[in-house]
């Protein structure tokens, strides 16, 4: 593709902003317009910022005046706290996407749309296959929260794709982000001094390093990758394993009390636990990344475990002990227990 002009929604949020930075360093990107309701907090050089709500019909003017050929929709929010309440979140996610895609459909110059989605659309149920490929749908569609929004947003996107077959539509279903800088309910969860976990359950988790997420978005903008892709680091971690890698203390909670504890944690403002996230902490979720590697042609630099270890190392989480200490203790205990009494020396 020749010189590109890109519009990014949600440029004041982490991924949108970092993507804009990444695109700025590429001379093939002629122009970048960032749209959001708040001013970006990070340093952007040549990105033009437009303070606008994507629900505003003005957005079509921005698309046309800016001669935008690539639209990156990254403003779908995952947490009610980040959007000012659940109803507002739904408004931004669902109605926002609807309006944005309606405007995009009217803009003839558009060649490419990149949508940020999530593996959350697969839900977390014991009745579903252990590993989701992009074609699979959960037996029961998510009915609440962010997952439901993500399902609806993807449906709108696919509808748009049918009406504008000339536009390359890329939907990226991201696993849980993790890394040195990104702030999500999950990163906050792992920063709690004592981590409440559901007793008797251990979910499988996939992580995507924030840098890999930016690279995946960048690659979707620069190259042509039509289709839907799960995006995650290789491999899985159990929650219990992640807690041990982070050197944290788990506090198992019996399931009937889970909602009470989640509400208490939510009230402290430390972690925004929504009901579907509690479901996630019971049964976990894993997406298949074969299509990402083989069709999209992108392999994240960090595996799930490496991404998590980078998060642990850079955030300097308060650990109860390090792995070096554990090794030392192992040797000490062995030496103590295997020490033969003096009288046994001659035997």
């Amino acid at each position, binding site marked *: 593709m020749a010189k590109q002009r890109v519009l990014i929604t949600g440029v004041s949020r982490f991924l949108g902003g970092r993507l804009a930075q990444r695109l700025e360093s590429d001379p093939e990107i002629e122009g970048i317009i960032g749209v959001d309701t708040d001013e970006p907090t990070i340093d952007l050089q040549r990105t033009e910022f437009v303070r606008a709500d994507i629900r505003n019909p003005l957005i079509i003017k921005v698309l046309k005046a800016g001669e935008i050929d690539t639209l990156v929709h990254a403003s779908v929010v995952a947490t009610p706290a980040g959007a000012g309440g659940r109803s507002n979140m739904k408004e931004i996610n669902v109605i926002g996407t609807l309006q944005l895609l309606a405007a995009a459909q009217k803009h003839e110059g558009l060649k490419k749309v990149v949508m940020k989605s999530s593996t959350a659309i697969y839900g977390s149920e014991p009745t579903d296959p252990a590993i989701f490929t992009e074609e699979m749908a959960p037996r029961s569609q998510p009915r609440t929260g962010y997952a439901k929004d993500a399902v609806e947003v993807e449906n709108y996107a696919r509808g748009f794709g049918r009406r504008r077959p000339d536009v390359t539509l890329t939907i990226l279903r991201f696993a849980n982000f993790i890394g040195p800088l990104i702030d999500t309910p999950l990163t906050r969860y792992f920063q709690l001094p004592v981590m409440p976990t559901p007793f*008797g359950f251990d979910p499988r988790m996939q992580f995507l390093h924030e840098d890999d997420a930016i690279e995946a978005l960048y690659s979707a903008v620069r190259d042509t990758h039509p289709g839907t892709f799960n995006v995650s680091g290789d491999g899985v971690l159990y929650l219990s394993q992640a807690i041990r890698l982070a050197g944290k203390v788990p506090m198992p909670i019996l399931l009937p009390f889970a909602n009470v504890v989640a509400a208490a944690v939510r009230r402290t403002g430390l972690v925004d636990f929504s009901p579907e996230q509690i479901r996630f902490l019971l049964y976990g979720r894993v997406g298949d990344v074969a299509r990402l590697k083989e069709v999209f042609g992108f392999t994240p630099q960090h595996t799930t475990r490496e991404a998590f270890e980078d998060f642990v190392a850079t955030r300097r989480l308060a650990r109860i002990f390090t792995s070096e200490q554990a090794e030392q203790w192992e040797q000490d205990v062995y030496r103590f227990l295997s020490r033969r009494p003096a009288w046994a020396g001659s035997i």
Partner: protein
Amino acid sequence: MAEPSASGAEVIKIEEARSPGRCQARTSDGKRCRNRADTTGYCTTHHPAEPSEPTALEMVLQDVLAFMRRRATGDYHVDDFGFDKDLTESVLLPALRPLFKNYWRIDQTGVSSIPETGPALFVCNHSGTLPLDALMVKVGVFEERRRHIRLLAADLALSLPIVGELARKGGSTLACEEDAMRLLDGGEAVAVFPEGFKGIGKPFRERYRLQRFGRGGFVEVALRAQVPIIPVAIVGAEEIFPMIANLKPLARLFGFPYFPVTPTFPFLGPLGMIPLPSKWVIEYGEPISTADFGSDGSIDPMLVFNLTDQVRDTIQQMLYRNLIGRRNAFF
């Protein structure tokens, strides 16, 4: 303490020359030891502690400590299905082995049918009120081949606290086409129990009578993946919890497929949960090849139907043969 003089290589040489055959060590007051040295250059008192071969007990201790360290620091690998090899080999299988060897004294026959490597679909009969027979097949295959068979489990089992967690860590996953195909494509040995709850939850009077084999989904999977089907007959599991009656209202209340009444449960309370020590035999039948049918075979319902019947009949015959051969359910 006994310490070889370490003040420099030359000095040692001179002193050695002055007193050949003397111990190199220094005594506690700093003087040279005057005892006669053996071939190592030290006397018997000052013999440096040699790293002796660890005893069997010490090796166990090493393993246990290393395992505890790995668990405490998260230093182990799980696959995408959640199979935790470290935990399975160090804890789950050793915990089940006494049941296999000493309690039910399981004899295995036809073990030459178990492939050393490569994918295979084990199709087994299912009985015993609780799916302990599946766990015993897992132990049995590991004992013979050191390979981990992947059990396909009901969603109910995977949704339960603790049980579901341990099932996943032990390598089980949901009995569905997607998971079975993925495991077989990865070269794994997979075990399926097509009778499902109809099999383990059947009344005692119907023991060893195979129930309907689902809709033959397992045959479709085997045909699509082009892997051999290995029929497995498990004799003895029917007697561990003889189910006299099924309290359906209670089952509905708890959301279970059945609520068993056995001679000991629920009358003896938790004691009634102890399974009876029947004598088991697990027979592995001749592998049934699916390669001849081509992968299109899976879309031929007649072929699927016939193969399902063939596998079912084979297992039923194996069950009858073993039942005739045994003297008593408990010896």
